[in-house]
């Protein structure tokens, strides 16, 4: 346990904060601009304005920026180790190999959570400046953001594993972008989208005005695809990191 917390602090110290922050802001800012332009569209009569704008803001963020940035961060937090040969530094210190994997996974989860918070923050900022903030049902948008975070966890684990595997910065990134692109098609497809990990953040973040618990995810999808997928990728990455040769 001590190893884990000490490593977590070390990982935090190693983060290139300026770079990370600017990357974190890109998605939410661009998405909010889309949300802003949507204000001049015809809003469907049966839809409250705040939901419509949220939906428009969330659209591009959830299927495009969010999963891709997850991959970028995964590659970034392994980049130092790859380029400066610092894996061997990490693994010759008297710490367990598992805690190395766990601390990196935790940092990535924190970053994806931060991304959700910034996204919500930008949406609220838009709402305040456009004067519809008081109409927002907080539970709906917070549930959407939280569900999106849970839904991205399999991608987190898989991308982290891929980033451990490849020395190059580009490979995990390209893999991630290629896997994000089918989202355009699967998000519309009823049969495929519940099973495709990269489309989970989008499905999970669709705002649901009904009282549907803390998560707006189908139980089947939640347990099989998200939970199962996360366990597989997290366990696989962990086993691989702790067993393999580090040179």
């Amino acid at each position: 346990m001590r190893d884990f917390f000490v490593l977590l602090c070390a990982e935090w110290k190693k983060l290139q904060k300026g770079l990370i922050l600017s990357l974190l802001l890109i998605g939410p800012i661009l998405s909010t601009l889309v949300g802003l332009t949507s204000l001049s569209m015809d809003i469907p009569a049966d839809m409250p304005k705040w939901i419509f704008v949220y939906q428009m803001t969330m659209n591009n963020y959830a299927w495009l920026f969010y999963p891709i940035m997850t991959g970028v961060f995964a590659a970034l937090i392994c980049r130092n180790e790859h380029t400066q040969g610092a894996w061997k530094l990490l693994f010759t210190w008297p710490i367990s190999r598992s805690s190395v994997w766990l601390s990196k996974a935790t940092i990535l989860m924190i970053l994806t959570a931060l991304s959700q918070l910034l996204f919500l923050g930008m949406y609220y900022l838009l709402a305040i400046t456009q004067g519809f903030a008081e109409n927002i049902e907080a539970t709906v948008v917070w549930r959407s953001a939280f569900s999106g975070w849970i839904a991205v966890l399999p991608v987190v684990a898989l991308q982290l594993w891929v980033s451990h595997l490849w020395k190059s910065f580009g490979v995990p990134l390209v893999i991630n972008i290629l896997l994000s692109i089918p989202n355009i098609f699967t998000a519309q497809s009823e049969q495929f989208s519940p099973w495709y990990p990269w489309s989970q953040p989008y499905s999970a973040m669709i705002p649901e005005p009904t009282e549907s618990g803390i998560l707006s995810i189908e139980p089947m999808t939640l347990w099989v695809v998200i939970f199962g997928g996360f366990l597989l990728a997290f366990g696989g990455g962990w086993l691989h990191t702790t067993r393999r040769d580090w040179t």
Partner: protein
Amino acid sequence: MTKTVVQTTQLTRRYGKTTVVQNVNLNIKQGEIYGFLGPNGAGKTTTIRMLLGLIRPSEGEIQLFGKDLHKERKSILKRVGSLVESPSYYGHLTGKENLEVARRILGVPSKRVDEVLEMVRLTQAAHKKVKQYSLGMKQRLGIATALLGKPELLILDEPTNGLDPSGIQEMREFIKELPREHGMSVLVSSHLLSEIEQMATQVGIIRNGKMIFQGSITSLQEQSRPRMRFGVGDANVAAQLLASEGLSVSVEEDGIWTESLSQQETAHIVEHLVTHRFSVYRVEEVKQSLEEIFLGLTEEGETP
């Protein structure tokens, strides 16, 4: 009795079908500077990686401080500092920040950071980003990181690689002081005999993954059997005569050479030559230099 710090038993590592390290029995005693010597590709780095638990042996055992590395990895690594191949660092952090990250992980007091910076003379550059460091400075930072936890065993893999002559000299002096001033044992690898010769007390020579010599520098010198040179007139004919007697001889420009001989054998040859009316004007024993011994050992039967 001096304690054994490193002991490997039949240590073997294969990559696919090629055996890169084969049945190596490394033995390093406390307070020694052990020079691990071998040409490039001999298996030094692979052995060192196994000692540090970075890669797993295919066969054999590793004991550090008398404990099994596989079973007590963490408590063993607490007592070991290392620098494997090129130094590892975080380029976007300063030298001091790099050490600070390591310090927290190792759990040593923060004043130790300044101590090791002082030891490797990086105090001036402590607040510069490491990516702006010269190679020599990065190497010294690597050493500082290795020293941070006050290790009992320091493992340095080719620490002078890429340094300029004065940097090499400095590194050598630095390493030589460690056992005396800090009671450390040191394992230092190199592909250059001259370097090991100047700092090591013990040597292990590895070639094609096999340990071909292990012992003190003086016993390495004794390894070489001196050769005999006979200065003889009409050397070619004289050599034929000796060869017909069943002696293995070779003719070189400066005379006839044989393997080392006992006193009787020498006397016998001289007598033989003289009775056959060859003029013998010089008989001498020629010792090989360490360099020649090393080359002899490492080139002998180049095909494994």
